[in-house]
């Protein structure tokens, strides 16, 4: 266990370094001036001052090492556009918002996916099963920004149940996180159904019935754990999907999370901010994948992590 974690940590540091290096050089090679490139002609003296402030007067490789050194001290430096805020402050504001959206989205996806998947499996080849499966197929096929558009038209303008956009009240979270959850709920539902059907056909389920246990006990205690193994391995990629999904949805629902800042930073070529957010996403993804592998070992006792 300890050995596994140490090994994972080592890999994480290595991965983050590679991501850092590639992102850094890509950004600065594609647009060497960063956010300083603007329509407005800056006086030469001001421009030189700014370049010195952001080390733009130094060669790229030299800057690479400076920035890497700062990152090792968890200091991503100043933004190029939002002069009054450091990148750390931007992250401190945006990250909790994005994370709560992501966690809520993932929870909705798991609850809806598990419930519909189990019911589908137990009532297979009935109207309920076919309905759930059709909805799931739609959910996978429709991109979340299209779904968000429809959701806004129906729930905001027609039914007037939710506010169109905004942030601060709990109700603001509901519609965005449901839209975020939809495709993942659909996928989890299908995985749960397949997993459940496979497990329900196993000999040990017949044994459980032969012991006189009631169907609810058999399904929840004996079948569920085996059935959700495929879902657990899907949670790694799902987290990545939730992160990128929230990029777009934060934009649609005007939520001031990391996604909004990220898109803003990319559009305005605010490279230091983009780089910092890329690094945060890398870290989140890696942590999530490690957690998934750990939980795999917890769910299935036959899985050994130390190798």
């Amino acid at each position, binding site marked *: 266990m300890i050995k596994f974690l140490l090994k994972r940590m080592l890999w994480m540091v290595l991965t983050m370094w590679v991501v850092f290096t590639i992102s850094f050089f890509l950004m600065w090679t594609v647009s060497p001036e960063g956010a300083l490139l603007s329509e407005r002609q800056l006086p030469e003296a001001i421009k030189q001052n700014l370049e010195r402030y952001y080390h733009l007067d130094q060669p790229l490789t030299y800057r690479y090492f400076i920035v890497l050194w700062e990152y090792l001290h968890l200091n991503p430096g100043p933004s190029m556009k939002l002069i009054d805020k450091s990148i750390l402050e931007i992250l401190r504001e945006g990250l909790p918002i994005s994370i709560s959206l992501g966690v809520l989205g993932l929870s909705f996806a798991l609850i809806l996916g598990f419930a519909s998947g189990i019911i589908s499996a137990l009532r297979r080849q009935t109207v309920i099963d076919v309905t759930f499966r059709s909805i799931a197929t739609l959910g996978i096929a429709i991109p979340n920004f299209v779904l968000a558009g429809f959701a806004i038209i129906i729930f905001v303008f027609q039914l007037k149940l939710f506010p169109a956009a905004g942030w601060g009240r709990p109700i603001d979270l509901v519609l965005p996180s449901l839209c975020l959850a939809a495709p993942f709920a659909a996928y989890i539902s299908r995985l749960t159904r397949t997993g459940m059907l496979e497990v329900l056909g196993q000999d040990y389920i*017949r*044994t459980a*019935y032969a*012991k*006189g246990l009631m169907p609810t006990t058999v399904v929840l205690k004996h079948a569920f754990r*085996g059935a959700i193994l495929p879902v657990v391995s899907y949670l790694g990629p799902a987290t990545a999907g939730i992160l990128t999904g929230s990029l777009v949805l934060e934009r649609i629902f005007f939520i001031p999370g990391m996604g909004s800042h990220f898109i803003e930073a990319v559009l305005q070529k605010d490279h230091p901010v983009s780089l910092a957010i890329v690094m945060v996403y890398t870290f989140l993804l890696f942590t999530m994948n490690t957690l998934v592998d750990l939980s795999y070992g917890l769910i299935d006792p036959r899985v050994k992590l130390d190798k």
Partner: protein
Amino acid sequence: MAEEIIMADAAEHENKPGKVLLDVRDLAVEFRTEDGNFKAVRGVDFELRAGETLGIVGESGSGKSVTNLAMLGLIPQPPGKITSGSARYDGLDLLRMSDKQLSEIRGNRIAMIFQDPMTTLNPFLTIDEQLTEVTRKHLGLSYKDALDRAIEMLEKVGIPGANRRVFNYPHEFSGGMRQRVVIAMALSCDPDILIADEPTTALDVTIQAQILELMQKLQDEHGTAIVMITHDLGVIANMANDVLVMYAGRKVEQAKVNDLFTDPRHPYTLGLLNSIPRIDEQVGAELSPVAGQPPDMSQTIQGCAFYPRCPYRIDECLQVDPPLVQVGTGTMHACIRDVTTLDPPTPK
């Protein structure tokens, strides 16, 4: 505390040897598939007496497992369907019970063990979890009492270090040990009837002998009646008092175990006996397997189901499905010919 409950429960269900515990009449089971109605069991009768072992023999697909699974409501419905019959246990018909009533009997009064111990235990749960849930449900024990009972049962079936091993997962046991665990689980409520569906088929021969010996010993101690489903005549010779031979979903012969081996009456039984090696036969003698394939059970069978494979067949066999007739001391067979007076057929 646990002891008292178990003993009280056992006393209530005390069965005198020879008392009929289970009385199955005319049981028929179908599976409705896209390829037609597959008639897995076509009218089977048998009785099971307290303290005795009934062997059910037959090849794969003869309906021997389905008969017993159906009785306990363990076949998936649909596609399965019990089309007729009754199975009286303790004055009540198992086939007409609600799911709830039946679940009170399953694992409690009638327990089952299955063929493959590698797959019949849940790989995700520890043994203590799987053993205690039975006694907690049926005997109302607390977890602590149930755990004591589980350890006691594991010791009884010969698991060394039971008080430690009880917290292990199934994959930490060998196949033979797992089958012992399965037996301990099945017997932990001290059932009247144990249905063993090929309990030794998946085990190697030395382990088979140990498991059979264990079952015999536990039967002697507790007076449990056993239904032993198998295709292994060696197991039957060892364990059974009465034997029921099934072919194509029907009972074709029933006899006391000695009569079956010394005086078989149905050509299929005869075929089965000829297909196993005998120690008193000359070395190098060829075994004669039962030629051909069992019939397609989704089709209507005209006359005797064994006709196409029967060495003694005559045209009359196609006219009627032979009824069971009684001969001698309790042997019943379903054949219109008297194979004891006929010459053995010349091998083709």
